[in-house]
């Protein structure tokens, strides 16, 4: 809850950009001497301006036109620009304040960097040679090879990304709980959430397998195993939660979901 009514009003922003008439400007200036929240807001705007000015390597295109960047990213990801670029760029355009824009730039850089780094690090272990001893079975399509159906593959990849985002909340919830201090009701809650995601996970894994999207199928398989273990466990004890956490850790599930998500920006 904001104590000052002015802090979230356009007046502060207008003041910062020197957009107010003289009387209004004087009123805001007087207010600023007494209101720490509004002073902080002005300071934030200054900080953003300084940060942007001091980072010439953040190659923000003029007027926020990210279409070139998104096109290059699409090309790198092997997708056609039609849907992903316009969705992403429109999302960027729809942000309403310089604060969000700056956060967006920083977040994009961080996510892209982490994604590229993790993808490079993780890729060899994501698709191991299929041996009976150490790999999850990802079967070849049993019926029709639709791997050239790029639109449908891209749609399934986007759907999987959304599913991983939903599931990540559950997986992170399970991974971050303290087994010694998790009540039965909390455990029950996590179990229900995990159970609610199970059928979709299985369906998407099978669809990905069928389409030869082995990376997605593989991570869906890991997620399915974790959700199964979590949702079917009847023992609300520390050992059960530790076992689920162990499974999440050993399968690198959080990292894998992050990488799949990053690849589909």
């Amino acid at each position, binding site marked *: 809850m904001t104590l000052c009514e002015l802090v979230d009003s356009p007046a502060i922003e207008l003041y910062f950009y020197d957009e107010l008439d003289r009387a209004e400007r004087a009123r805001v200036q007087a207010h600023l001497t007494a209101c720490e929240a509004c002073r902080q807001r002005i300071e934030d705007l200054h900080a953003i301006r300084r940060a942007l000015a001091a980072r010439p390597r953040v190659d923000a295109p003029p007027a926020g036109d990210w279409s070139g960047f998104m096109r290059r990213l699409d090309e790198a990801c092997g997708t056609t620009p039609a849907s992903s670029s316009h969705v992403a760029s429109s999302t960027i355009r729809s942000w309403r304040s310089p604060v969000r824009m700056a956060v967006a730039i920083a977040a994009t850089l961080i996510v892209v960097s982490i994604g590229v780094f993790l993808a490079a690090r993780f890729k060899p272990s994501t698709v191991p040679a299929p041996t009976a*001893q150490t790999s999850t079975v990802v079967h070849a399509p049993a019926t029709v090879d639709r791997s050239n159906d790029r639109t449908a593959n891209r749609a399934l990849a986007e759907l999987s990304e959304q599913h991983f985002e939903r599931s990540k909340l559950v997986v992170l919830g399970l991974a971050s709980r303290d087994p010694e201090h998790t009540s039965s009701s909390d455990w029950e809650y996590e179990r229900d959430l995990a159970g609610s995601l199970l059928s979709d996970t299985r369906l998407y894994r099978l669809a990905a397998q069928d389409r030869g999207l082995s990376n997605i199928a593989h991570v869906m398989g890991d997620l399915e195993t974790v959700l199964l273990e979590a949702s079917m466990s*009847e*023992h609300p004890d520390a050992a059960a939660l530790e076992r689920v956490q162990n499974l999440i850790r050993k399968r690198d599930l959080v990292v894998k979901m992050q990488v799949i998500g990053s690849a589909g920006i």
Partner: protein
Amino acid sequence: MTIRRWVAGLATSAMVALSVASLAAAPDSRRMERAKDFIADEQWLRAIDQLKAAVADAKEPNRDEALFWLAHSEHQAEELAAAIDTIARLERDYPRSRWVRPARALRVEIAQRLRRDDVLWWTAAPPPPAAPGAPPVPAAAPLARTPVPPRPPAQPAKSPRMTPVATPPPPEMPAGYPLPSPPEGPTAWIPEPFAPDTDLRIQALGSLMQAHPGQVIPLLKEIALDTKDPSEARRAVFVLAQSGRPDARTTVVEVAKQGPEIVRIAAVRELGRFGGANAGAELLQVYSTATPRVKREVVSSLAVLGKGAETAALLRIARTESDPQVRNVAILTLGRTSVADGQLGALYVSAPRDSRRTVLVALCNARDEDGLIRIASTERDMALRQEARRQLRLLGSAKALKFLAEHKE
């Protein structure tokens, strides 16, 4: 004497209660813990050893769970026949276990792998329970230890055992499609009586889609339209949409027109997501009879498609839709699509006042600085003019900032 009886009764009750409690919430044995460690490490053969020992141990408190993970590990280790045997044993020995459900899903997957369409059909549309006095079921074929080669579907002799028994009665099968082969021995895979849940049926139908679309599509449509669980309906629609088959797509359109609202929304979303040459026209068909919520979803899906024809459709919706919420969603969506220069400006002029603010936002999203400057210069309504200036400030282009500096209010 009475006291002794009372104490004995109390002790017996306590023992019964303890054993029930231990059965209901028995912690994992050390062996199960080791097995799960191996599963986590994907060391299937070592997991199988541990799990087999657990299953053979009469003192193991979670033998049903051990059987499931054994089947899972055998499947991963490509020991498919062993996995089927294990699943059958789980169903036979622990028919009420919660592990039966995921085990059955695993069986469908193995059946798909081995192209056992008879087993898949048995799951997708199980036969009715045998009537009293009915002749016995033919002897089950022995479970093959090597993958069974795919068998071509038998020609038209429609097997009564393959008639779907779901309630309500199955739809008419369109002519021209081969019928599935009669089952020769799925009882080796599936114990009777067998009552698959809807998710299992959807999974099996998805596996049969490419081989038997004529029978599968009506059954999925029936699930989408009739099930009381929206999640199941959504999954049925997903299987239809992602199949890539034109006839399945037509069915998704029908569901989008006829289903309960929440299912219609799911169908519209899938139509947009999976695209297709006629996706825009199909979505507009749905739009013509849609509720406001479904209309909003159609607008979003048109934006996902994002082609020229779909943009024209969005423009038409933005101009003619009477529901202000739907109209505003269409206007905002236009701002994200490749709408031609000047079209949003023209829309501003013709839009009702309560949508003009939305057009200004769309103009900003479309980076139409000229359109915004024109409105900021000429609009007589001060609130709208201020809004146009605000959008220009957000846009932050050199031209916009120059205009704001030169035309202070």
